[in-house]
């Protein structure tokens, strides 16, 4: 498993894909950050994080599209599957490599907060009263960071699963974008539905609705379970695809 993890992580950097991903990620996050905070003169980062989730729709397929599609095309999966590694080990190795890239880029993008805190410091010094809190809320930022990492983890599992279904990287990427977009947009559809039962079901499926509490800086245990189970379901599906191919 660790051999595959290391190989996968390395392969992001021996091909241009890793650099493209990080470049786009940093540029997009900086753009969204300045748009949602500085340009609105706001310390509220909620909309930054929800916009980042939209950005994930495009960014995460960059990480996941080649995970299995490429192996299938080059037949290198034969090497992995005939090596003394379990299928679960192989899938987890790849998943964790993509997750590492993702979490790494999220952490890198935290430099966006530095100018916000800097501005806050200046403003606080100039403020007349110390009673009002000026500046971004730490709880909100940390909560949202945990939230988007959970959302991203689930998205990576979905993208990885889609990558096993095709041997064409481009097809894998396009389908992933479509599916992820659908998962997000479903939450908005709710605004136009009056039937309570339908709303309830869609709300339950919708990835975005679970994210809201993190934005208030509240740690929602149910949401944590929701995202973790979504992730494990798709990892399980991925393993099943390979099991099935073996027995097929």
């Amino acid at each position, binding site marked *: 498993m*660790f051999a595959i993890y290391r190989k996968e992580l390395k392969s992001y950097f021996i*091909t241009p894909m890793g650099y493209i991903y990080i470049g786009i990620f940093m540029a997009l996050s900086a753009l969204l950050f300045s748009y949602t905070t500085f340009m609105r003169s706001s310390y509220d980062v909620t909309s930054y994080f929800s916009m980042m989730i939209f950005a994930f729709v495009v960014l995460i397929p960059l990480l996941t599209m080649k995970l299995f599609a490429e192996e299938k095309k080059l037949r290198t999966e034969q090497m992995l599957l*005939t*090596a003394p590694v379990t299928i679960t080990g192989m899938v987890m190795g790849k998943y964790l490599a993509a997750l590492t890239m993702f979490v790494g880029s999220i952490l890198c993008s935290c430099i966006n907060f530095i100018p916000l805190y800097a501005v806050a410091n200046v403003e606080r010094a100039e403020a007349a009263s110390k009673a009002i809190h000026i500046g971004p809320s730490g709880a909100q930022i940390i909560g949202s960071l945990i939230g988007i990492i959970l959302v991203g983890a689930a998205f990576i599992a979905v993208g990885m699963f889609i990558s096993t279904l095709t041997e064409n990287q481009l097809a894998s990427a396009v389908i992933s974008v479509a599916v992820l977009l659908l998962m997000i947009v479903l939450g908005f559809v709710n605004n136009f539905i009056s039937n309570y039962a339908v709303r309830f079901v869609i709300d339950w499926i919708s990835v975005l609705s679970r994210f809201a509490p993190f934005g208030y800086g509240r740690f929602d245990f149910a949401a944590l379970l929701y995202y973790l189970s979504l992730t494990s379901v798709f990892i399980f599906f991925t393993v099943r695809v390979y099991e099935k191919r073996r027995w097929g």
Partner: protein
Amino acid sequence: MIKIEHLVKNYGNFCAVDDISFSVEAGEIVGFLGPNGAGKSTTMNMLTGYLSSSAGSISIAGIDILENPLEAKKKIGYLPEQPPLYMDMTVEEYLNFAYDLKDCKYDRKKHLAEICEVTRITDVRKRLIKNLSKGYKQRVGIAQALVNNPPVIIFDEPTIGLDPKQIIEIRNLIRNLGRDHTVILSTHILQEVQAVCDRIVIINKGKIVADEKTENISRAIEQSRRFNVKICGPQREVLAMLKEKSGIVYAEALAERDGDAYTYMIESAVGVDIRKSLFYTLAEKNWPLIGMEALGMSLEDIFITIVDKSNERKSLRAEKEKGYRPGKTGIEKKIAADIMKNTAENQTKEEN
């Protein structure tokens, strides 16, 4: 070392491998032979645990591949039909990955250097795999199979697409590996098995149709005595004489004609040198013998006959498609039948 029992693989209604049983002793090099689509690759993929079998069992060095796949896979080095190479890696990175993947316990530097030496890729270690020639890629694929020094090595068509010099090199390499490894090698090139293997297993339509030591088959080939003879004289009478002559088991007139000379194909009985007595007989009859050419019998013919027979096709059809095949109806058929009979007997013996 390898024991396969009643192995079956179904793809839906299609039966790719149908009740195959055979075993391979340690240190043996076995050639796995068959036409395209015979089930060679499927069998190899099951042997290596890439596919699972629908029924039957496979054990590698006493370890069942379904019960304990991780341990069994450690005993196998596998080179699939298309070498599983990561094009963006250098040879060294790739071999290091194989080393990690197989959880190898040997000293990394020394072990990999040895493998590179054996497969002669030392001078390309720093190069990207995608820039290597086909022959080098194949050798890197073999090198990968050798990592962790597995007792069993399985090659699926290792020489396909290589130039003759590379083919010879790879064959030598495989022969050397056979000294301290058990090797299974699939191919549809007969010279290859003849040159490299101790034993030949022929598979067709998912069934084993022949399983014989290479030397036995070669001996059978040497025993054959077949000639093309060119005789001046009336065709019908000459042919009648040839057919009746003792020591000749088969005679046939060929379409070839040169003036009043016709060409005939004859086969002598095993252990009889027909040439001298044929000369005297012809001299007596006053039919000048103007040419005699010994025909070698190739493994190819036996192979095709075995496969054809197992297909229960009339040899006529193959003749039509491929033009004339000397001896298709003659001694090869007999040898093929003998081999098939032996195989069937061995199999029933094993089952009992």
